[in-house]
Every structure is written in structure tokens, then in C-alpha cells.
């Protein structure tokens, strides 16, 4: 990083945090701290909702995912707009009518305290672990590629977030997220324009996309019906709908965002804005990965994208094989490059027969190239046992570091840190609020003063921040943790959503029936995760369906007349 990059990075982060904290200074009631004061406009709510969901992983992983597997991941978001409509029409009005601080508060009035606290605990467990990962994920990548100390990076990200979250609670979180989201969108748009400028001058956008499509990167919609295929139109519309309903309807880190709206209408429009903008935004981020893929058809990519790890392999006992594989990589790239040029020429001439032939040749050359890449990973695994072989997260950041001009690099690192901070801040704020409102106040201090709950909210935010940073430090010791935590939400969201749906729509079911149904459904989801290969999006459907079915059954049994 050059001095101008540091200036852009530190200037952006500092300006957002200082200005946001200053604008929201003087928060001195528990209502303002925990609930947000109820005066936010729809655009603040909408941007804040989007910033909460966009973690650093979104910007680090998605372009890499599109580079490796194409645009199919976009289908994951197809259920989201439907969920926004359902929430706006049916759920948000209930929260507003009851004037709740947290989503779980509703469950005590509808069922009983044990159901409220069980659901709050499921949230605290899943979100608490995920908060650690939202700090850890960018730290591990930035420490690898920029040489920043991992634990110090964790501590700085976590420390800054705790400081400003404690200062103004959910109000300052929403305020800073608005600016962070603008930086994220602006940064990614600038990245897309820059990558486009690096492609060959005579390559049209249509031909660039056709080139990517030839190698399978433009298959956005998959109509196949297979439960073990992770992303299809159907899993997106059903599993994605359930995930979005659970996440936006029952996860306090999101519910807190729209409960701070000035009115029901502002909250609804904020949610619907998310429903309209989310898919195009994710398309843009994935498309950056596809354009990167096209760039690397004309310019030789590294054989392994975590370049520092590959370089270390040159200093092992297998160095000879590593060098020979490097030479082989050069050769397969040169051969593939010839096929790419042939395809572009055929497309330019508008010759369908020549285009079809060139596509077949290019696919064969790409398959040889993929084989060499797989062998490189195998070699790396034997040369440096224990090294992480998944390198997709390094594709985008590696390109940014190698090619971005001064200033833009600093902006992109700011995008990644903004994403991490915005996701962590709303998580910590929601964890603190839920701990006070759903556990501490009803169980330990039901009659304390408002000031007491304000102070307690601040201390619980600090405590969750410390736990998240500790978990982020511990995460470095574990393998495949990011993948594990990606499915973590789906392990808990199904039963959580089931409890709420029973509450909203099945009036005859009472507290004990839904409580035991939720516990059994949670056990069922964990069993499905441990014993089957079903795609994780379906866990949400299974968990939710199990709660609804079992709670109805238990209520029926409880209500049946007893014969002596």
C-alpha cells in the first residue's frame, strides 16, 4: 500500500466513524440506545439493512465465487424480494402495534417467557459466533496479503466497532452504516469500471460475456430439480425465501434496523428498497468476478491465488516439482490464450460454425488448465501440509493489490473494512439489546431505572465485542471455520422462523407445544446436517416445517380429552 492508499483508507474510516458518532452524540435513554429513537427515514433504514447483510466476505468471496463457479449463486437471493413483501405486509405491522424493542419480546405475550428466552438464546448463539467471523474473515485475508498482524487487525476492527457502537447504540450503527454502504457501492462500481478498462480495447462487452459464458460462468438460472445442488431457481425461491424471512423477520440485528423507523411506512419502504436493490447489487459484485475471469483469459493468472503460500512452497523439499508445475502452467496458459484469440476472431467475423469450433477447442484447453490447477493444489497440500487449499477468497483481493492504481486500492480496502465493521456493529448492538431486554431485565432486574438499562446495554455491548474478538482470535486455530459458520445461520434460523410463524398464524397453539416443538426441530436440523448431504438452504425449510408440524400436533394431543 502506498501513502495515498493509507490516506484514503484511514480518511474514509475515520470520517465515517467520527462524523457518525458526532451526529448521534447525546444518546441518554435506553429507548434511544436499544431501539434507536424511532425517527429514521426509509433510505437510512434501507441502506442500514443492506449494510448489515453485506459482510467483508461478500466483497472478498463473491467475485472469487463467480470466477470459479459462475453467477449461479445469484439465485440464493431470488426469495428475498418475496420475503420483503411478506414482512412488510404481515409481520412489521405486528411489531409496530406491540411497540417491541426486540422481536423475541413478542413471543412472551403470544406464548410464554421460556419460548421467548429459548428463541433469544438461539439468536445469541448463532449471531455471537457469526460476529466473531465477521471480524476474523477480513483479518485473515488482509494479514496474508498485506502482512498485517492477524490478532492486531482483529483487535483494531473489533475495538473501533465497540467504541462507536457503545457511544450511540443502534442510532449510531444505522447512521454509520448509511455512509459505509455508500462507500461499498461506490467502491465496487469503481472496481467494475477499472477492471473493464483493463480488458483488450477491441473486446466488446457482448463478446466478453460470450467468452465467459463459453466456459460456464454465465449460467445464472438453473431450472434443475436436485436437492443436493446448492443453488437452483427452486432452492433460491423456497430455501432463499425461508432464509430471508428468518433473517429479516426474526434476527434482531435486522429487526432492530427497521424498528427504528419514524413510522410503519418508513420501515416498510426501507425493507422494500432492499427487495428491489439487493439482486442487482449482488449481480454487480458477482459480475466483477466474471469480468476478472475474462481479464485472466488474456493475462496469466497465478496457478494458486494465495500467492504468498505458493511462494513458500518454492522453499520446501518439493521445490523442483513446484518449479516444473509453474513451467507447465505457463505452457497451458499460452495454449489456452491461442484458443481465446481464435474465439474472439470468430465472434468478430460473425461466423457461427467457426465460433462453435472455437468454443469446443477453448473448453478443452480450459479443462487442461483446470487439471494443472488441481494438481498444483495437491502438490501444495503435500509440500506444506495443513495449508488452506481454498484460494477463491484471494482472487479478487490479489487482483486489487497487483493492478489497482494508487488511491483506488485504499478505497477497496476501505470497502472491505466498512463491510466488516457494519456487519459487526449491528450484530453487537443487537446482541447487547437482546441480552438486556430478553434475558437481563425480565430475569434479574425487572424494576430498575432507565439509566440502569442504558448502562447495562453499553456493558453487554462491550462484553459481546470482547467475546467476538476472542472468538475471532480462536478462529485462526481452526480449519474450514468460515464454511462451517456460513451454514451456522441455517442451523438455527428454521426453528426460529417456525416459532414466529406459529405465533403469527396458528392461533390455537400455546407456549409449551411450540417450546418442545422448537427443541425437537433444532435436534432434527442438527441430525440432518450431521447425517445427510442435503444442501444447507433446505435446513431452513425443514426446521421451520418441523416446528409448525410438531407444535400443531402437540397442541392437538394436549387439547384431546383425557380418558381415565
Amino acid at each position, binding site marked *: 500500500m502506498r501513502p495515498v492508499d493509507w490516506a484514503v483508507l484511514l480518511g474514509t474510516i475515520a470520517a465515517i466513524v467520527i462524523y457518525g458518532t458526532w451526529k448521534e452524540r447525546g444518546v441518554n435513554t435506553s429507548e434511544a440506545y436499544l431501539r434507536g429513537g424511532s425517527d429514521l427515514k426509509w433510505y437510512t433504514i434501507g441502506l442500514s439493512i443492506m449494510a448489515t447483510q453485506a459482510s467483508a466476505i461478500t466483497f472478498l468471496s463473491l467475485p472469487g465465487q463467480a470466477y470459479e463457479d459462475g*453467477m449461479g449463486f*445469484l439465485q440464493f437471493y*431470488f426469495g428475498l*424480494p*418475496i420475503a*420483503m*413483501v411478506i414482512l*412488510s*405486509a404481515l409481520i412489521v405491522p405486528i411489531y409496530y402495534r406491540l411497540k417491541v424493542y426486540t422481536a423475541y419480546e413478542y413471543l412472551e405475550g403470544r406464548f410464554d417467557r421460556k419460548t421467548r428466552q429459548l428463541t433469544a438464546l438461539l439468536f445469541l448463539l448463532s449471531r455471537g459466533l457469526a460476529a466473531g467471523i465477521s471480524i476474523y474473515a477480513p483479518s485473515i485475508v488482509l494479514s496474508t496479503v498485506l502482512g498485517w498482524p492477524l490478532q492486531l487487525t482483529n483487535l483494531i476492527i473489533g475495538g473501533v466497532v465497540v467504541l462507536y457502537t457503545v457511544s450511540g447504540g443502534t442510532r449510531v450503527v444505522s447512521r454509520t452504516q448509511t455512509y459505509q454502504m455508500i462507500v461499498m457501492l461506490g467502491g465496487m462500481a469503481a472496481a467494475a469500471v477499472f477492471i473493464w478498462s483493463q480488458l483488450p480495447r477491441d473486446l466488446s462487452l457482448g463478446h466478453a*460475456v*460470450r467468452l*465467459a*459464458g*463459453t466456459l*460456464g460462468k*454465465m*449460467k*445464472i*438460472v438453473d*431450472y434443475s430439480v436436485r436437492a443436493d445442488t446448492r443453488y437452483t*431457481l427452486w432452492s433460491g425461491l423456497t430455501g432463499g425465501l425461508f432464509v430471508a424471512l428468518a433473517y429479516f423477520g426474526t434476527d434482531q440485528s435486522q429487526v432492530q434496523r427497521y424498528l427504528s423507523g419514524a413510522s410503519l*411506512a418508513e420501515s*416498510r*419502504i426501507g425493507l*422494500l428498497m432492499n*427487495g*428491489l436493490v439487493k*439482486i*442487482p447489487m449482488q449481480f454487480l459484485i458477482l459480475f466483477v468476478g466474471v469480468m476478472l475471469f475474462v481479464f485472466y483469459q488474456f493475462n496469466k493468472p497465478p496457478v494458486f491465488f494465495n500467492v504468498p503460500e505458493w511462494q513458500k512452497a518454492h522453499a520446501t523439499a518439493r521445490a523442483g516439482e513446484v518449479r516444473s508445475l509453474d513451467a507447465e502452467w505457463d505452457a497451458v496458459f499460452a495454449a489456452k490464450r491461442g484458443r481465446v484469440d481464435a474465439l474472439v476472431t470468430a465472434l468478430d467475423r460473425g461466423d457461427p460454425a467457426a465460433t462453435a469450433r472455437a468454443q469446443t477447442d477453448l473448453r478443452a484447453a480450459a479443462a487442461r488448465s483446470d487439471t494443472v490447477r488441481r494438481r498444483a493444489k495437491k502438490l501444495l497440500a503435500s509440500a506444506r501440509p495443513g495449508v488452506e487449499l481454498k484460494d477463491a477468497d484471494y482472487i479478487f483481493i490479489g487482483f486489487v493489490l497487483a493492478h489497482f492504481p494508487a488511491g483506488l486500492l485504499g478505497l477497496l480496502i476501505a470497502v472491505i473494512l466498512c463491510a466488516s465493521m457494519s456487519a459487526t456493529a449491528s450484530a453487537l448492538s443487537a446482541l447487547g439489546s437482546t441480552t438486556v431486554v430478553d434475558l437481563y431485565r425480565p430475569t434479574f432486574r425487572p424494576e430498575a431505572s432507565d439509566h440502569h438499562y442504558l448502562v447495562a446495554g453499553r456493558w453487554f455491548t462491550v462484553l459481546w465485542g470482547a467475546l467476538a474478538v476472542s472468538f475471532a482470535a480462536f478462529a485462526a486455530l481452526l480449519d474450514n471455520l468460515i464454511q462451517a459458520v456460513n451454514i451456522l445461520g441455517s442451523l438455527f434460523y428454521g426453528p426460529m422462523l417456525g416459532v414466529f410463524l406459529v405465533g403469527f398464524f396458528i392461533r390455537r397453539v400455546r407456549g409449551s407445544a411450540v417450546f418442545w416443538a422448537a427443541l425437537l426441530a433444532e435436534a432434527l436440523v442438527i441430525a440432518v446436517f450431521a447425517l445427510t448431504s442435503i444442501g444447507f438452504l433446505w435446513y431452513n425449510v425443514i426446521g421451520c416445517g418441523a416446528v409448525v408440524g410438531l407444535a400443531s400436533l402437540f397442541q392437538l394431543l394436549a387439547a384431546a380429552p383425557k380418558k381415565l
Partner: protein
Amino acid sequence: MPPDGDGRPPILRTWGGVYAIVLGTLIALIALFSYWSAVYK
């Protein structure tokens, strides 16, 4: 939502209209992406 006659197009005067725009946009996007999936291969 504000009452009728505030200058908004009729579809934006009711929540049902706003929801229809959100869901209609989703259908249009899926159709567009399906078309691209078929064309760019």
C-alpha cells in the same frame, strides 16, 4: 401511504401496488437472467 391525488402514479398509491412493483421486478429479473443464461453459453 399518502391518500389519492398526491401526484403519484395510481400504482404507487396503495401498498398492493408497491408490492406488485417489487414482485414484478423480481419476475422480470429472473426472465432476463434466464434469457442471458440461454444466450451467453
